[in-house]
């Protein structure tokens, strides 16, 4: 039996009296794209912060490639091969697009950490992958919002991670931009990187993820194959409320009290 790339075992995180995560357990297999969805405040970003070492977890264990990583500082998690993006992009504003990506390659996972010349060459490859090659010499201030999202992706990919955690890369994008961003995510996946995609927007997840984990109030509500999860009326209820879920069940001719 092979070890999953990432394992979360009963991970809990509290902020004062608020239980942001309650015994969250799931695995990410090598080479898949896993979606994590949930309504606002479900704990999606907290979960991502816990994996990437930004937050320390209170209970449970997180294993990456069979080794425990909870308790490691963020730069060690990055070095082990977990990259991430931020929902609100955090570019290095005084630098050019190319320099932003190159910094990822100068540091990053143990497979990256290149010398400056190699880092800039690798940065150009990554920028081509995300479709920013023509804007490599632009200062960040000259980028549109979709391009800033691409840059956020490029910097994370440049660190040569094995696992990439994407925090709502489609948020704030219109339908066309969102489709383009999805293409970029697929290309990154094809380059051999396992992806965890945190999303609020359902269609995005449905279009690209094979498997989905649903978070609600800090707990795993359900997980499974994408279509099964999206058909689950509990998921609809969590997102849209009981009234809508009830209507949906009636429309499908399902019994009313299947919770």
């Amino acid at each position, binding site marked *: 039996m092979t070890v999953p790339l990432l394992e979360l075992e009963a991970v809990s995180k509290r902020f004062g009296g608020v239980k942001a995560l309650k015994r969250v357990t799931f695995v990410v297999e090598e080479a898949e794209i896993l979606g994590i969805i949930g309504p606002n405040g479900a704990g999606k970003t907290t979960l991502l912060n816990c994996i*990437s070492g930004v937050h320390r977890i209170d209970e449970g264990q997180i294993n990456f490639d069979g080794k425990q990583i909870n308790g490691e500082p963020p730069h060690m998690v990055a070095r082990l091969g977990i990259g991430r993006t931020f929902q609100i992009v955090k*570019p290095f504003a005084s630098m050019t697009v190319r320099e932003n990506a190159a910094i990822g390659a100068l540091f990053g996972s143990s497979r990256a950490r290149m010398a400056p010349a190699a880092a800039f060459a690798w940065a150009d490859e990554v920028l081509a992958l995300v479709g920013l090659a023509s804007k490599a010499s632009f200062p960040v201030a000259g980028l549109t919002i979709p391009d800033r999202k691409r840059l956020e992706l490029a910097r*994370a990919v440049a660190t040569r991670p094995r696992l990439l955690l994407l925090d709502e890369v489609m948020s704030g994008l219109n339908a066309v931009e969102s489709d383009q961003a999805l293409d970029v995510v697929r290309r990154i996946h094809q380059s051999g990187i396992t992806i965890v995609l945190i999303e609020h927007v359902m269609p995005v997840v449905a279009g690209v993820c094979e498997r989905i984990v649903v978070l609600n109030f800090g707990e795993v509500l359900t997980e499974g194959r994408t279509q099964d999860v999206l058909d689950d009326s509990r998921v609809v209820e969590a997102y849209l409320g009981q009234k809508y879920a009830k209507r949906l069940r009636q429309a499908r001719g399902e019994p009313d009290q299947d919770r």
Partner: protein
Amino acid sequence: MTVFRRRLLLVALLVVTAVVLVLPVTLTPPAADAGLDPESLGIDFLVNKSILRMETTIAMFIVLATAWNLIGGLTGYAAFGNVAFFGLGAYTVGMLTDPERGHLPFALALPLAPLVPALFAALVGLPLLRLRGHYFAIATLGMGVAIGEVIKNIDLFGGSTGLFPPIFRRADWLFFYLMAGAAALAVATNWLVLRSRFGYGLIAIRENEEAAAVIGVNTTLHKVAAFVLAAALTGLAGGIFAQWNSFINQENVFPIEYNVEMILMAIAGGAGTLFGPLAGAIVLESLILWLAGMGGEVAVLSQIGLGLILAITIIFVPRGVVDFFGGQSALSLAHIRRSLRETSV
């Protein structure tokens, strides 16, 4: 045309630098013995003791501003207490060369001047660099004041009287060259850091510390290392100053004004750039020395003027004069010229 003018400017700068660096040779004892002193050469209006003293002071502020640039300009941590490192370096030399304490010759004491402040910076850096923004600035300001007060109140360190390193007679040229060497070392350190992975890590921390951490920058290590480097260079300048001045006490090696001045120079010249702090130190320290020379009310008013310069720079050219002449920002002269050219076509 512009290339030619830029070359001309560069050549002129190199000539001035060479003259400033070579002329003090005429003040050395061998030159005097050979009859090549400034007076007999008729150049004592270009090089004499008071001019050399001013140049040494300017070189000292080049060290302070350029060293501050490592932590304040590159890493983005507004350290307001670097004078603590200057004072510690000075007191290291003061204690070691004191006839009643260390008995060491200056040549052996000076190499230790960067070490003591560097160790101190490593120690206090760990807790201090967890603070950000104003909190870090205030904490370091407190550190700068506190260290001076502690030393002043310990008799072992000479108390409020201070320490008196043995006087070197007719050695103004020596201290000029030492301070100029320290300035060159500080600029070289900045140059190396700016080209290295370490330097990129520092800039990443300045731009966004959280993003820097998750792409694998060991932020704590980087910040402390930058702080320690800045402390070592600042301490070296302090060590040279102690012997040069041959009298140190809390007031002359822990002055709060130095904190403000070194930051003002670095920011006015261009924080985070290689030559910005150097240019800022030369221009502003010349100005300060000139105004102070006028004495009386002018000297007091000049302090207000410095504050005004700081405020104006931060508001209108936040990235400094170097950026103003060659940079990208919308308020820079270069940018205004570019847009004028584009609209006139």
